[in-house]
């Protein structure tokens, strides 16, 4: 597992330096940027970590940067810092998936807790993302027929029902089912459902 990085973006050089020091003193590795533009120039949208972001900045503001990162599904958890309590901005930030919205001056406890949380979330996010990636690649191995069968199985249909739907015999269905389970490396239907969920594919509710 790679070392978690805390990115800081703040247009006020004094605040930037101080935040940088505080997080360094707490043992995190920190990268500081004086503006959103600077940050985007060096960030590749894949590095996971925590972003401590000033809300009001000339040029690209904090919220605008958050939006840009979300669009690119960057694996970053954002902690907002702001000089003034602006409820509208706070709501928007939280909707965008921010971990916390902290007022300046910020206490180290609050900041470090938020950063820790963010880092944890970022780690989970990273792991989920890699699991999904492997599930997706496994699903991509299946044939069209196997996928049809998979969909029905995940939906909780019996082999007999599936055969009738697809206009074939139960035995054929069984064969497809065994093949796809082997391909996906699962042994039970429960495992199969989890894998499909991880890959983000829709799982239909079983028909009653």
């Amino acid at each position, binding site marked *: 597992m790679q070392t978690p990085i805390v990115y800081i973006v703040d247009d006020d050089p004094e605040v930037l330096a*101080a935040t940088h*020091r*505080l997080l360094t003193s707490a043992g995190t590795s920190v990268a500081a940027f004086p503006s959103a533009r600077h940050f985007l120039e060096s960030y590749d949208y894949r590095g996971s970590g925590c972003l401590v972001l000033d809300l*009001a900045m*000339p040029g690209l503001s904090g919220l605008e940067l958050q939006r840009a990162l979300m669009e690119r599904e960057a694996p970053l958890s954002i902690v907002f810092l702001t*000089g003034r309590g*602006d409820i509208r901005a706070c709501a928007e930030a939280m909707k965008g998936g921010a971990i916390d919205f902290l007022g300046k*001056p910020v206490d180290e406890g609050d900041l470090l807790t938020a950063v820790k949380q963010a880092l944890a979330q970022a780690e989970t996010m990273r792991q989920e993302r890699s699991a999904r990636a492997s599930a997706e690649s496994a699903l991509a191995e299946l044939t069209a027929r196997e996928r049809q069968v998979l969909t029905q199985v995940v939906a909780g249909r019996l082999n007999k029902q599936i055969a009738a739907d697809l206009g074939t015999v139960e035995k054929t269905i069984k064969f497809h089912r065994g093949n796809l389970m082997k391909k996906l490396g699962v042994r039970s239907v429960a495992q199969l459902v989890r894998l499909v969920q991880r890959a983000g594919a829709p799982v239909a509710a079983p028909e009653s």
Partner: protein
Amino acid sequence: MGWIDIAWSMIGATSLTLGLIYLLVWIRQPTQRSYLLFFMTAASVAAFSMFELRMMRAPTPDEYVATLRWAHVPLFFMFVSVVGFVRYHFDSRRMWLGYAACGLRGVALVLNFRASANLNFEKVTTMLPLPLWGHESIYLPVGVASPLALVGQLSNLLLICFVADVSFAVWRHGDAKARHRAAVVGGSVVVAFLAAAILAGLLNTGLVRIPTVVSVAFLAVVIAMAYELGWDVISAARLNARLRVSEERLRESEQRLQMAAGAGELGLWEWDVAADEVWTTREGRALFGYGAEERVGLRRFLQSIHPDDQARVEHDVKASLDEGARDFEQDFRIVLPEGRLRWVRSRGRIERDERGVAVRMRGVTHDVTARRQAEERFRTLVEAAPSAMFLVDVEGTISLVNAHAETMLGYAREELLGRSIELLIPERVRSSHRAHRQAYRQEWLPRAMGAGRELFAIRKDGTELPVEVGLNPMQTFEGRFVLASVVDVSQRKQAELEAARQRDQLAHLARVTMLGELSGSLAHELNQPLSAILSNAQAAQRFLARDPPELDRVVEILADIVKSDKRAGEVITRLRSLLRKEEAQHQPLDMNEVVEEVLALMRSDFLNRGVRVLTDFAEPLPVVSGDRVQLQQVLLNLLMNGCDAAVASKAQPVIMVRSESASGRDVRVSLADNGMGIPPENLERIFEPFVTTKPQGLGLGLAICRSIVRSHDGRLWATNNPGGGATLHVELPVKMLHS
């Protein structure tokens, strides 16, 4: 009858004729005694010549002696008259010589009649016949000379000395004409008497045998004297002729004067003091309303004067009679018979006799009613003026003040009249006022005094009051004057101060309100350094807690903390200065700095609202004079308005701040936004109080801004931009270095 008889008769006749001519002249002019004295001399010479003729013709010693004895009588008179003539005609310093000569001649005359024969001879023994040219013969005496003759000779000598002395004195001290007279009269007398003395001496001693021809020498004296007197008569005649001409001229000039006096309505008069009779010209009578034939004396004169002026005029007339008194001069009113009043000015000069007693007074009177009325009108006007008025001559002497001036300055009228206007000027500016007054004499145009300066007058009690002064030059026949009108502006100054105080209070109120609106932004400005300080401090604690403590980092952190703390302090200072409640204090300002400070205050507001601020400053800007806080308030207010306008309409709100000084006389700061602009009909209205477009606004902001800018002698106005949005302009005058 031989030629001797004829010659001597002619000598006598000539002398007598000349003498008689001047006797006639003397009768006409008895004061001219020299004519009488000449007549005496001439008559004496005529008589003497007759005696001399008889002496020459005397055949016997007895007849000769008797004739000679009597001949001394005219000789004596001739002496006296010559001495008198010389004394009268020329000044003599040594009269005693003349008196001695006459005295001695008198003694000789007495001795002459006491002697046995006469003065010259003790005894004449015989008469010698002496044949002359042309079958003529005369007799010469032969006898014993008398020693008494020396007395006669001595008197001759004294007379010669006297005349010579006088002539010499005149010759030395007189002019050319006097020298001539001295030479003719003195010379002839000296020569004649010298000749007479020598002849007599020679004759007496019998050394030579010649007849006595003294008459010829005496005739020369008479002719010389007649010549001298002739000049006098001629010059008197010339003088007379000249007098007649000047009398003619005098009469003409008198007529002209009368005509001029008549035309100028001048009444000439003359008052005979002793007779108490006043003579006056026709115009004079008309002025006073006297009848043409009416007899006028002092009483009648005083009766014609207005009762209020009578005592004054009477006193002055009587005072001017006193010895050494000045000329009479008075303005007074005459009550004319029809009851009308007339102002006249009368001037008179006393003429005195040699004892100094006033004999008569001559003078002139003229009508000054029109001038008096004009003066009266002027006085009334000055008195009625709503300000204090001072009429001041070129020397700065006050010659007229009104009642306003008395009450304003606490002086009585008499205390101001005749005093210098500098009395009313505060000590510290007195000398410069004198210089200004001198300079104004050159300029001589109506204007306000002390352009741009605050003027003060000083009251009698020493307190000062602020004034405004208007100057009006006046040219009168009495010389140049300045009419200064002085207005007490202390109430206005008080009102101005009060207005300024209220404006400052209102501005303060508006500032507090505005800062309330800005408080979020300001809190942010404070939060930034505080935030940095907190994080830095907590980081430092952690670095210190490490083992070993990372002291290098802590040192670094502490330096940053100090920096941030100072920054926070500055924000608070700025805030406090905006909140403070003080009177406006004007100081030299660079408007670029003022704008920068305001932009710094609003920085986070711009950030929060996404407003871009562009600046374009002219550098360096001339310095203006103003109150930093109030001007910041104006700019803050305008920027906040601009911000609202820009945010309300555009996706990308922009405010452009520009400073410039195109003329060098003004500095202009323009704030342009890209909002919706201002409807043209509202471009001026927005500066009126309670006119607002904002739901929560009071509508006082721009009104206060304008009053602040105006109190800085500046302008504040709004225009719409060609490309949309509005621009607000603040223009302030550049502070002059020399003022």
